[in-house]
Each structure stands twice: as C-alpha cells, then as structure tokens.
C-alpha cells in the first residue's frame, strides 16, 4: 500500500483533547489527520444500555500493578470521542490554589500557568460547547468570570434529599455545572433526563466531542482514520525533528504517516507508551524523555462513596443525568482536614440503573441471593449516592513503563504501577466519615460508605507539563521540551489534579495550546 500523503498535522487519537486541536488547526486551514485505534462511532452506535455501552470502552492493553491498581478499562476510551464519548460531562474547574501547590505548600508540582491565564479559555469553552451552570453561585469559591450560556440542569428528589444534610454540617452547596444542555443550544436539544449518558448521548444534549469540537474539525476537513493503532513517532537522522508516525491499519498492515507536526493525544498510559517505544540512538530512553520523566506522576481520584436509602415512595433515582445536581467546594482547602493534605469536592447525585459499576447492585457488593433481589427492588426507587472526589498528589513512582510482553503489532504493553499514598488515603477516609454524617443528617434510613478500598476515578498525568525541561516533559502549551514539532495533549499533561473531574480544564488548556500552535505555525512547523 502506498504511503499516505504528508499532512500538516497527525494527531494520535480522536478523543477529547485531539478534537480541540483538530478543530482549531483545521479551521486555520491545516490538513489534519486523526489516527484512532478504535472505531469511528456514529450516533446510532450509542445504544441506551449499560451492557451495550461497554463497547465504547477500551479492551485492556496494559498490565496493572501496585497497591491501588488503576481501573484502566473503565476509565479509558476507545474510538472517536475517546473517553468523552461516554463521560458524564460534570464540569467543575480547578481552583487557583491547584496551580501553584509546590510554591505555596511545597507539595506536588506547579502548573506552568495560573488560573488567571486559563480563565478566559474556561469561559470560551463554555460558549463553544454549551455549559449549564450558575456562575455567580460558583464564584463563592472561585474568581469571577463570564456567566454560563445556560442555567443549571434540573434537579430531582434523589439529589435534593442530601441538601438537609449538607446544611446541617454547614456545607454550602451550589447547583452543579455540566456540559449538558438545560435548554436547546446551538441546534442541539435539551437533556431529557433519562440517565443514559454512560452509554453515550445520541441526541447531543451532552457535549460529547462528536457533537462539538470533533464535528467542527470534520466540517473543516479533518479526517478521522479509525482502526489505526499508532506504535511509534518517527524522527529525522539528527533526532531534532519528528517526521511522522508509524501505525497499523485495520488490515493490520504497517503504515507511515508523514506530518509537519505530530500531536500525541492518546490518554494517560498510551502517550508515554508511544514515546517510550519511539527510542532511537539519539533518544535512547524514548522521545522527550532525557530527564526520565515520561510515564511518571500518573494520578487518579479517590472517591468517598456514600449510599443512602430514603424512606419515601419514589425519589426518582432513575431520572436525571450521570454527573451531578448539586456540589460543594466548601471542603476543598488543601489543609482543611487534620493530619492530611489534599482537596475534596462533594457532589450528588447521579441517575442510577440496577447494573454496572455505578449501579444499585454494586452499591452493596456483599449482598447476594434473595437478599440482593430484595435490595435491588427497594433500591430502584429509594437509593441515592453522595460522593467526594479526593485528590492524589503526583508521585514519580506511580508510573507507566514498557513491559516485556508485546501486543499483536510487536508493541510492548504498558505496565502501570499505582498506589495511593497516606495523604490520599487519609483524605478519603475522612471524607467517608463526613459523608456518613451528611447522610444521617439528611435523614437517610440506612447509609453506608464503600470502604473496602479507594476507587481510582479518572486518570491523569504521565507526561507532566511544567516550566522547565529539567522537571517536566512539555511546556504549558503541550509542546515537548525536547523536540519542537512533537506535541502532547490531554489529561496526560496534568502535573496535579485537584479534586475535580478533569475535562473542563483539559479543554481549556487544549484550546490555549492549539491556538498558540496555530498562531506560531511557521516557527514551529518549520
């Protein structure tokens, strides 16, 4: 097969961050190709079912190790839109204190930009994709900005039941911000609150990339090339420029795609895996890895998960969205809890189905037999969930390396080691305690915390950005310190994670990076 024609930009992955870069660069007139290992999902593929929704998730390509192994397959995407095809679109921002933790507290790492640098991009993303929320209420916790284009999504009784509990503990709440339409927006309809977000929202009420940045990129000529598994980034003889990428197509044939700029947007374990596998004599440790930091600082959020049974005939817990109706940053302070360091974000309550990871049955994993049947029946109208995301600090030993074992393309698997430290565990435990107090004060007739082990929610890090080549892999735009035309995008760039879902921040940072690249194209692309 002939080598495909050289393009301006080859993006690895067609997920969330890839879509932002593709949209900005295609609009700037660049020829963009997105090489995606999975299918190019169509709306008709987004079948409303927890069971069928699993097709949207990756088949595990990694070896998972450590005390708190990552829930990799649940958290990683596969196919156009990436994990954001089946994400919940809860859209909290990081707070200013998240950006300078090392300078302010001597903990974690600093970001290469501040909240103020990112704030205009948060506001623009909200307008671009449609965000529903009450900015004024949120500004109790963060600096002021633009109002959101839509009011908050509606609440249901299973979310409102927790408010009494929050109030009793003096915790102020606000309506949660979501990238879900509370009204028709830019030709996309308002949400109908059927709770199928996890299987992908085929009507476009939820701002998944296929309806937003990816659609925009395609409109401007960007190509998604599905079933294209990228294995290596290729460099010139001197090793100072990348020339393209190697990939295997749907017939499992090796191909080379030449490009002026290569952007790796392949998520947490895959960005490092590809960089490490691209080692040459000029880059013996892998690309962008002279300082040995590629693959390090992988993070996840703990989740203090509290379930409450409410003695009411029907709290309509089957209605709503999968993200949240109410949230609170009141306990976000890094040092708000005795003896431990790290933030938490309280939020409630998702629509729940009987099955799958977040389902009714899984809320009481100890039950089986007739007791489980009875519990599912009761829970289907009376059960609700409260949760606090908890921060994990970046730890260089939580890392991705190449394993000896290889995949069908001879591409070494990623081996991911992950263990929470004492701070993360302590924050999680204290949040569990507080959550039970909230549940009691809210009037739950039964309440319990899932304490067996902290879950690993979201995944970020692995190719941290920073100010200097000595302590990071890329700069604040995503450009690697080592090779000017090799870029990185996505949550993999996060040096710290705060206690919030990552995508709003990731979108804002990607928009900032992509516009910088477009504005400085000639200097960077050469």
């Amino acid at each position, binding site marked *: 097969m002939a080598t495909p024609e050289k393009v301006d930009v080859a993006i690895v992955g067609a997920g969330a961050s890839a879509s932002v870069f593709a949209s900005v660069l295609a609009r700037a007139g660049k020829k963009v190709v997105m090489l995606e290992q999975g299918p190019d999902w169509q709306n008709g593929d987004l079948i409303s079912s927890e069971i069928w929704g699993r097709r949207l998730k990756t088949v595990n390509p990694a070896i998972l190790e450590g005390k708190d192994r990552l829930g990799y397959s649940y958290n990683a995407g596969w196919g156009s839109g990436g994990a954001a095809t089946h994400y919940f679109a809860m859209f909290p921002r990081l707070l200013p204190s998240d950006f300078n933790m090392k300078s302010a507290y001597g903990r974690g790492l600093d970001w290469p930009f501040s909240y103020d640098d990112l704030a205009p991009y948060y506001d623009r993303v909200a307008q671009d994709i449609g965000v529903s929320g009450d900015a004024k209420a949120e500004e109790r916790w963060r600096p002021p900005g633009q109002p959101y284009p839509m009011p908050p999504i509606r609440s249901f009784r299973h979310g409102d039941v927790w408010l009494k509990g929050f109030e009793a503990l003096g915790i102020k709440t606000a309506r949660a911000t979501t990238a879900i339409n509370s009204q028709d927006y830019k030709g996309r309809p308002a949400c109908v609150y059927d709770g199928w977000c996890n299987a992908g929202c085929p009507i476009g009420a939820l701002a998944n990339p296929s309806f937003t940045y990816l659609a925009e990129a395609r409109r401007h000529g960007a190509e998604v090339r599905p079933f294209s598994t990228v294995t290596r980034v290729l460099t010139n003889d001197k090793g100072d420029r990348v020339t393209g990428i190697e990939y295997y197509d749907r017939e499992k044939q090796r191909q080379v795609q030449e490009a002026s700029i290569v952007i790796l947007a392949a998520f947490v374990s895959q960005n490092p895996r590809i960089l490490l596998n691209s080692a040459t004599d000029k880059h013996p440790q892998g690309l962008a890895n002279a300082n040995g930091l590629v693959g390090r600082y992988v993070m996840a959020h703990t989740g203090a998960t509290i379930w409450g049974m409410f003695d009411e005939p029907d709290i309509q817990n089957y209605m709503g969205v999968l993200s949240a109706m109410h949230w609170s940053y009141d306990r976000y302070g890094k040092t708000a809890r005795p003896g431990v360091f790290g933030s938490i974000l309280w939020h409630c309550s998702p629509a729940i189905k009987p099955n799958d990871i977040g389902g009714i049955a899984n809320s009481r994993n100890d039950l089986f037999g007739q007791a489980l049947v009875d519990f*599912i029946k009761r829970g289907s109208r009376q059960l609700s969930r409260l949760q606090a995301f908890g921060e994990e600090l970046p730890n260089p030993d939580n890392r991705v390396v190449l394993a000896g074992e290889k995949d069908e393309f001879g591409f070494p698997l990623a081996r991911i080691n992950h263990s929470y430290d004492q701070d993360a565990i302590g924050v999680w435990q204290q949040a569990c305690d507080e959550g039970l107090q909230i549940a009691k004060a809210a009037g739950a007739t039964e309440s319990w915390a899932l304490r067996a082990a902290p879950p690993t929610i979201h995944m970020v890090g692995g190719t941290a950005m920073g100010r200097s080549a000595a302590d990071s892999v890329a700069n604040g735009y995503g450009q690697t310190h080592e090779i000017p035309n090799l870029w990185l995008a996505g949550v993999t760039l996060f040096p710290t994670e705060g206690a919030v879902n990552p995508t709003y921040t990731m979108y804002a940072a990607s928009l900032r990076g992509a516009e910088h690249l477009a504005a400085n194209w000639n200097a960077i692309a050469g």
Partner: protein
Amino acid sequence: MAEIQRRALMQGAALAALSFTIDGAEVWLSPSQAQAQGAPINVLKPDEVETLEAVGDTLLPGARKAGIANFVDNQLGVAPGDCLLMARIASVRPPFVNFYRAALGAIERSCLSLHGKRFAELAPAAQYDFVDRMRQNKIEGWQGPPGPFVYFLLRHDAVDVAFGTVEGIESLGVPYMPHISPEKRW
C-alpha cells in the same frame, strides 16, 4: 441537530437481543429466550455451563432462567472489541474465556476437594455458604483468580441478565426510556 429525534420510543417488547445460530439459521434472541429455546452453547463446556448456571442462581435467583450461560457463552465467542461482559471494563485481559475457564475451574476444584461434589450438586445451603466464603476469600486451597473478583464478575453477569435488560429494568417498575433501544441495532 434538528433531524435527531429526542427519543426513539421503544414500543412493544424490546429486548436486548444477541445473535444465536439455531438449526443453521441466525436468530436474534435475548439471553432468556436463548435459554428457553435451548440455543447452542459454543465456547463453554457442558460442565462449565452447569457450574455457571448454578453459581449464577446462587448469586441472584433467576439468573439461570434469564440466560446467564447463553449470555456469557455468546459474548465469549465474539471479538474482545465487541464483547459486552463486565470483564471487559473490569480490566480483565482478553481472551476473556481464560478468566471464565480459570474461575469456573477453581470453583469446581474447591468444591470437589471440600465437599467431594461439584458445585451444582451441592444443597442450596452449601452453595450459599461456598459463595459467601468465596466472596470473602476464605476458601482454603483456592487456586484461580482471586475469589472476591470471581464473585464480583459472576455476580455482575447475573445482575446484567436479570436486571440490566429492558425486560429486567421494567420488571422493577422503572421506565426504561431509551434513546436507542438495544433491539433496534442488535
């Protein structure tokens, strides 16, 4: 996106159907229909089916009738990328049949060594007790994937077939409300 319908309302009996071959013809059946019609089992061995059904019914009474064995067997026969089992999103590495074979084999070996009988032959109280101990990783000499993980995944399969389908969710008196009903595509 005006052309997109907000809701493709499911009318009539919409079941999450899977493709089965009966008498040489491809038919679309829900796992419970497949179980009732005796759809052939292709991947699992007869004794594995027997164990899976018995463990499934212990974990969630009704799982056998809802077609746990047909569902699991059918999904073990498709490419990992098309697989709908919970094992896929619980980071089990494919081929998933390796997990099921090891898990069901471990249950059988432990039952034989502890009780001198296969799991399906145990009295209900003994089956319950065995599963309870597997859940807590308290079976001495257990050889296979960790007992609590086996419990977790098989229990999920049981919940999927009994309460994760259109039929199952509606049996709880809860509206299914699909945008795209499973049967439309499959």
